[in-house]
C-alpha cells in the first residue's frame, strides 16, 4: 500500500504546519489517480465474474428501460402534450372565430350607425330645406303683400297728390283773384291768370 503511506506522511506533516494543509492535500490528490492505477482498479478486476456479469445485467436492464419508455413512458408524455397542443389550438381557433364574429358585429354596428347618421342628416336637410322654402314663401308672400300695400299707398298718394294739385290750381287761382281784386280793385283776366299760375306751377314741378 504505497499510496496510503504517502498520505499518512502528508497528514503527519499537517500536524506540524497546518498552513501547508491545502497544498499538501492538493499534491496528495494529484498523486491519487496514478496511485490508483498502480494499485489496480476494481473496475478492471476480471478475476471476479461480477465485472462482466454487471454488463450483461446492465444490458438487460437498459433494454427493458428502453422498451418500457418507448412503448409506454414517452407516449404517455407525448399524448398529454398533444392533448394540450390540440386544446390550445382549438381554443385559439375559437377565440379567432369569436374575434371574427365580434369584428363582423362591430362592422355591422358601424354600418348601421353610419346609415342612421346619413338618414338623420337627410331628414335634417329635408326639414331645413322645407323650412327654408316655407320661410322664403312666407317672406315672398309678405313682400308681395307689402309691395301691394306700398303700391296701393303710392297710388293713393299719387291720387291724393293729383287731387291736391288740381285743388292747388283752383286754390291758387281763387287766392290770386282775391289778392289781385283786393289790391287793384278789379278782377284779373281769367285767361292770363290761369296761364301765369300754370307756368308758376310748372316752374315748381307741380301740375
Amino acid at each position, binding site marked *: *500500500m504505497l*499510496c*496510503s503511506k504517502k*498520505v*499518512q506522511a502528508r*497528514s503527519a506533516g*499537517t*500536524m506540524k504546519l*497546518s498552513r501547508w*494543509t*491545502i497544498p499538501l*492535500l492538493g499534491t*496528495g*490528490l494529484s498523486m*491519487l*489517480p496514478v496511485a*490508483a492505477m498502480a*494499485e*489496480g*482498479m*476494481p*473496475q*478492471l478486476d476480471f478475476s*471476479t*465474474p*461480477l*465485472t*462482466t*456479469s*454487471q*454488463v450483461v*445485467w*446492465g*444490458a438487460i*436492464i*437498459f433494454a*427493458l*428501460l*428502453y422498451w*418500457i*419508455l*418507448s412503448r409506454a*413512458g*414517452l407516449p*404517455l*408524455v*407525448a399524448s*398529454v*402534450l398533444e*392533448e*394540450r397542443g390540440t*386544446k390550445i389550438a382549438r381554443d385559439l381557433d375559437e377565440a379567432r372565430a369569436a374575434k371574427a364574429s365580434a369584428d363582423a358585429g362591430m362592422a355591422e354596428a358601424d354600418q348601421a350607425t353610419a346609415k342612421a347618421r346619413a338618414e338623420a342628416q337627410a331628414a335634417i336637410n329635408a326639414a331645413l330645406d322645407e323650412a327654408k322654402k316655407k320661410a322664403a314663401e312666407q317672406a315672398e308672400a309678405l313682400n308681395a303683400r307689402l309691395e301691394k300695400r306700398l303700391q296701393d299707398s303710392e297710388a293713393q298718394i299719387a291720387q291724393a297728390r293729383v287731387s291736391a294739385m288740381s285743388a292747388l290750381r283752383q286754390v291758387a287761382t281763387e287766392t290770386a283773384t282775391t289778392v289781385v281784386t283786393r289790391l287793384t280793385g278789379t278782377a284779373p283776366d281769367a285767361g292770363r291768370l290761369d296761364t301765369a299760375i300754370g307756368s308758376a306751377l310748372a316752374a315748381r314741378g307741380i301740375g
Partner: protein
Amino acid sequence: MAAEGSSSIDALGQFQLHPALGGIGASVNFTQSNLMMVVASLLVLALLWFGMKPRAMVPGRLQAAAELAYESMMSMCVEQIGPEGRKFFPFVFTLFFFILFGNLLGVFPYFFTFTSHIMVTLALALLVFVLVTAVAIKEHGLHFFSYFLPQGIPMVLAPLLVVIEVISYLSRVISLSVRLFANMMAGHVMLEVFGAFIIMLSGLGWLGYFPAGLSFGLNTILIGFELLVAVLQAYVFAVLTCIYLHDAVHLH
C-alpha cells in the same frame, strides 16, 4: 465508504462489486451496480408515471419536470440530428436519463455509482457506436465508407487520411466511455479521500480539528461539484450521441 481504521485510505474499495439481493442475486451474479441500475430505471419511470398521472392542462411541479425532461431531450434530438432525430428520441432519452440518474444516485452516501465502471460505460459507448454505424450503413449503404475519405484532398494523402479518419471514428468509443468513467471515478475517489482525511485528522486530537474541518468543507464543495459533473457528463454523453447520429444520418 469510509476507510477502515485511521491508518489507510481505501479510495478504490468503493468500486468493488458485490452480489446484491442476497442468495438469489449471488446465484445469477446480480451486483449492487445492477441494483442501482434498476433503481435508476425505476426512478426514471416513476418520474414519468407519477409526473404525467394528473394529465393536467396546467402542469404541477412533477408534471412540469417530466414534460421538461421530455421536451428538452426532444429538442436536443431535433436540433442536433435534424427532423430525423425524432426516430432516435426514445434511445437518447433512455441513454441520458439512465446515465443521469446513475450519476446522481452515486452522490448519495453508501450508494454505488455504476457509471464509475469502465465496463458499463464501455458497453454504453459500444451500443452508441454500433447504433451509429448501423444507422449510417442503413441510410447510405456502401456510400457510408466515403465518410472516411474527406473530399477534395490529393490522392497521395488519401491512405494516410483514411487511416486517421478510421482511427478517429473508432476512438469515439474510447473517448465516450473513458470520459464518463474517469469523471465519475475521479470525483468519488476525491470524496473518499477527503472523507478519510476527516476521520484521520480528527483522530489526532485538538490539533487535527482545524484541517479536519477544512476537509469537511472541501467535501461539501466537492459534493456540489459532483452534482454538476453528474448532470454535465450525462449531457455530454447524450449530446455526443446526437452529434454522431447526425453524422450517421447526414454524412458530414
